[in-house]
Every structure is written in C-alpha cells, then in structure tokens.
C-alpha cells in the first residue's frame, strides 16, 4: 500500500518534470502536437465537410473561404481530409512506435541482462532483420500479407522492434556493471525485479528518444505504402493516399498535394522537436 503510493508520487513528479521543464523548442513541440491531436479528435467541430462525401459540382476548386485548402478531383474538401487524415496517420505513428518499443525493450533487456547464449541468439536475429533495407522489408511483408492498416502495423512491428532491442541491449549491458545493479543482486532481488525496476527505468530514455524520430518515419512509411496502394485503402482520408490520388492533377491543382504533404512535414518536425527535447531531459535527469 505504502509502496504503491510512493510509486505514484514518483511517477507524477516525473510527468510533471517532463511537462514543466525543457527547452523552448521542446515545449513548442509538445504544444503543437497537443493541438494536432485535438484537431484530429475534434475534426467534425472544426470543419462542416464530410471527408469522403463526393461533390461533383465543385471539383478541383482552388483554396477559398469556402474550401480553405481547396477541393480534390472528386470535389472533396482537402482541409477536411487533412484533418480526418491526421487520425489515421497519428495512429500509424503511435502504434508503429508503441508496439515495437514494447517488444524491443523487453527483448533487449533480456539479451543485455543475461548475455551469453541468450544474447548470441537474439543478436543474430536482430542482425538479420537489420541487414535488410527498412522500407523494402516493410513493403515485402505488406505485399505478402495483403494491403490494409492491420498488416501495415504487423510489418512495421516486425521490422522496427530490432532497433529498440539493440538500443536497450547496449544500455542494459552498460548498466549491468553499475554498482546499484550489483547492489540489487547482492540484496537477493529476483532477475525480473532487477531488470524491470532497477535497469529498465534507467535504459528506456534513449529508446524513447529514438521512438520519436521513428514516429516521423512511420508516418512517412505509412504514407508511402498508401501511395503505392498497399496501406490504407480509398476512400479513407490518409495523407499518403491523398497525394497518390491527386498526383495526376499536380499541375492543375497543386493544393490537393501540397496540403497533405505539408501535414506530413509538420508532424515529422513537431515530433523530432519533442525527441530532441526529451534527449536533453534524459541527460539532465540521469545526471550522466
């Protein structure tokens, strides 16, 4: 009971520290991400248009007060599609980071902590996956499983858990020799307690920072696959798919491509601002 209460106090103070400190660019990044997430959630209140409703009477209209980002070749409001598209693309980024981060962290922790044969076997698997070019492997897996969002998540997870595993393994191997970990062993704690309570909280920061840049990459990969027709299927609003659908009108209606393209750039930028800020904070908290 007491221990549980202490933990929540510790966690809250860490969260508070994450929100209340940091560089200006980190705070701007957090603010911008919060705004993007809110805009995606409250999209129906921001725009009156349905992102998939066709209106053949107003196709390829340039930006105006009625349609801030113009309309595409099927008369759909581009602004509405960008807003609703954020729901899909942010989800691709979030799930594409969270699941591999979870799997990779646990596997890397086990490999680094136990070493020896466990590490050798896991290390070889990681080497094999890393040896393939990232995008080629994702496309190959999705092509094999068939197009769709779920298969995209499976492909992203299969390919990117190894990166997290490698980061966490390296950190764990360094920390294993630290005296507080020796002390934990000396105190007779179980392996899982040492790994998850004493090593994990001190190794997770670099993986988290990497996850932020991976988030941007996953959004881009999701868009790329949709562009190739392997990811999200029409008429779902998704930024990569929007670019793919409008590419034949590039010269006559560039707004239909610029808007989703800019959205990808902005999200990538915002997330990497947060990643940089987190890296600074992690150094500060560890005092390393």
């Amino acid at each position, binding site marked *: *009971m*007491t*221990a549980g209460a*202490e*933990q929540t*106090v*510790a966690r809250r103070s860490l969260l508070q520290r994450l929100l209340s400190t940091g560089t200006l660019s980190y705070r701007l990044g957090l603010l911008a991400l919060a705004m993007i997430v809110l805009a995606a959630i409250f999209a129906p209140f921001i725009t009156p248009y349905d992102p998939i409703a066709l209106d053949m009477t107003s196709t390829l209209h340039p930006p105006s007060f009625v349609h801030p980002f113009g309309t595409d070749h099927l008369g759909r409001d581009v602004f509405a599609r960008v807003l609703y598209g954020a729901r899909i693309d942010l989800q691709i980024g979030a799930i594409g980071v969270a699941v591999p981060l979870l799997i990779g962290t646990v596997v890397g922790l086990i490999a680094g902590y136990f070493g020896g044969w466990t590490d050798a076997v896991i290390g070889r698997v990681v080497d094999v996956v890393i040896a393939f070019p990232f995008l080629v492997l994702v496309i190959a897996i999705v092509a094999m499983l068939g197009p769709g969002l779920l298969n995209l998540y499976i492909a992203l997870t299969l390919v990117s858990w190894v990166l997290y595993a490698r980061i966490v393994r390296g950190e764990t191997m360094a920390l294993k020799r*630290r*005296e*507080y970990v*020796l*002390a*934990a*062993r*000396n*105190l*007779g*704690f*179980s392996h899982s*307690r040492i790994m998850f*309570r*004493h090593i994990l*909280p*001190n190794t997770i920061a670099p993986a988290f920072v990497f996850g932020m840049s991976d988030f941007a990459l996953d959004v881009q990969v999701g868009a790329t696959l949709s562009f190739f027709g392997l990811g999200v299927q029409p008429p779902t609003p998704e930024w990569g798919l929007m670019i793919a659908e409008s590419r034949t009108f590039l010269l006559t209606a560039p707004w239909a491509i610029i808007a989703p393209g800019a959205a990808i750039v902005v999200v990538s930028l915002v997330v990497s601002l947060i990643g940089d800020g987190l890296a600074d904070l992690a150094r500060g*908290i*560890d*005092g390393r």
Partner: protein
Amino acid sequence: MSSPLLSVEGISKTYQPGRSFLERRSIARPSLIDVSLALDKGDILGVVGESGSGKTTLARCIAMLEHPDTGRVMLNGEDLVTMPGSRLRARRRLIQTVFQDPYASLNPRLTVGSALAEVMLVHRLETKQGVRAKVMELLAQVGLPASAFDAYPNAFSGGQRQRICIARALAAQPDILIADEPVSSLDVSIQAQVVNLLLDLRDRLGLAVLFISHDLQLIDFIAPRIIVMLAGEVVETIPDGVPIQDAKHAYTRSLLEAIPSLDHIFRAETNPTRRETR
C-alpha cells in the same frame, strides 16, 4: 570447536578475457589465488593491498556477485558456491556490500524511502504497514534526517549517499557487512564520520565486517586483524595484537614506508603505536 560465521576456503578466480574467433586466446592472470579467511560475529577483518591486488574480486566472490572458480564460501556451515540459485537468493541478504563509488551505488530513479522499503518487503522482514517506521528508524540509525525518505539520491552528497548505502545494507538485516573501499572517494573529514558510523554499527548490531582499503593507516585504525594482498594472493596475515609496524613481509614493509609522515620532524613527541578499536 564450532565453525565460524563465515569461512572462505581457498577461493580462486580468473577472469576469462573475451574470446572472439580469429583472435588468439590470451592467457589471463588470475585475480584471486587460493584465498582463505574466517570471520565471526563482531569481528573486523581488514584487507589491504594496492589497486589490482584482488581486493574487490575477493569482496565480490564472498558476496557471490562473482562465481569463484574453485574453493568454498561457507556461511553458517553452508557452501554458497555450490548452492542452487533459488536458495542462494534467500541467503544473499546475509552478506551485504557497501561499494566504493557512492554516486553509482544508488538507483537514481528510486527515492531513498522506496529503495530501503523494497529490501525489507522483498525479504518479508517487515509488513507493508510497518515498513515506513522501520525505514525511518534505519535513517536515524545512520544519521540521516527523516526528510531523506522522499528524496532522490541526487539530493545527497557523497558522504550522505554512503550513509544511505549503509542503511540499505542494514535493511537486509545482514550478518556480514563487506565495506569495499567505502570511504576512498570521500573527503578526509567525511571519511572519519563514515568509518565511525561503521564501527558504531558493528558494536550495536554485532555485525561481522570485512573492511577493504588501500589505506594502511585507516585499516590499522579500524581492524585488529589484517590480511595483506598482492597480485591476488594473501602475502601476510597480521593477527590481533600485533602492531602493523611489526609486519614481516617485504611488501607490507614497503607499503608502510610509503606512508607520508611527519615523524622525522616530530620524532620527539610522537610514539606510533596501534590504537585500540574497542
């Protein structure tokens, strides 16, 4: 004759250098060669030697943080070296270590209170209701304020951190405390406080203490019995009651001579005899 609390019998340890294929296997120098010692309740045994003489390896082998290649570590008549992992884990708390670097010895993400409470809860030495009071008692025992409970290690100085480490070791209610150069990274003024704390705890709790240091004068002050190590071997054992100045081995003599002293200036007044520790 009953067996002592701890008896280390002929332990040796060689660290195998990492072997990569292509690289020829190099021959490792042993870190510990056939070391034996015995320790009873309330004893203080000093271990002295230069860097790389195997003092820390000895400490880690006794605490079973390293597995000795040969020999036995007998605790209450049970051999820890051959004991299966699950039983060993329950015995580990009986031998506690205070490490050299107080800045690396505490998990930066655990408050002092939760780090201490964890030890007692894991070993079921205390109930969840009673653990807070017990932690406060430990903090008072090592001379830390009650406010330390909710603080993180980064709020403390080296000397204070070492007190926290001692409190954490005591939380496990050990029989044996291994102090592996516990004061060598501290200021001289703080060293005395931490050493006195250790001596005081020995007296109050009847702990057996294995005190490791490269500082001959400090060891001489603390420990009635001293073993001198060189290149992994015990080269001399100085029994209780024998002044360290009477050491016979050439290496010990050279260590003694290396102590900077003002004796030649104050020869008239000073009379270097060993102080009593009790």
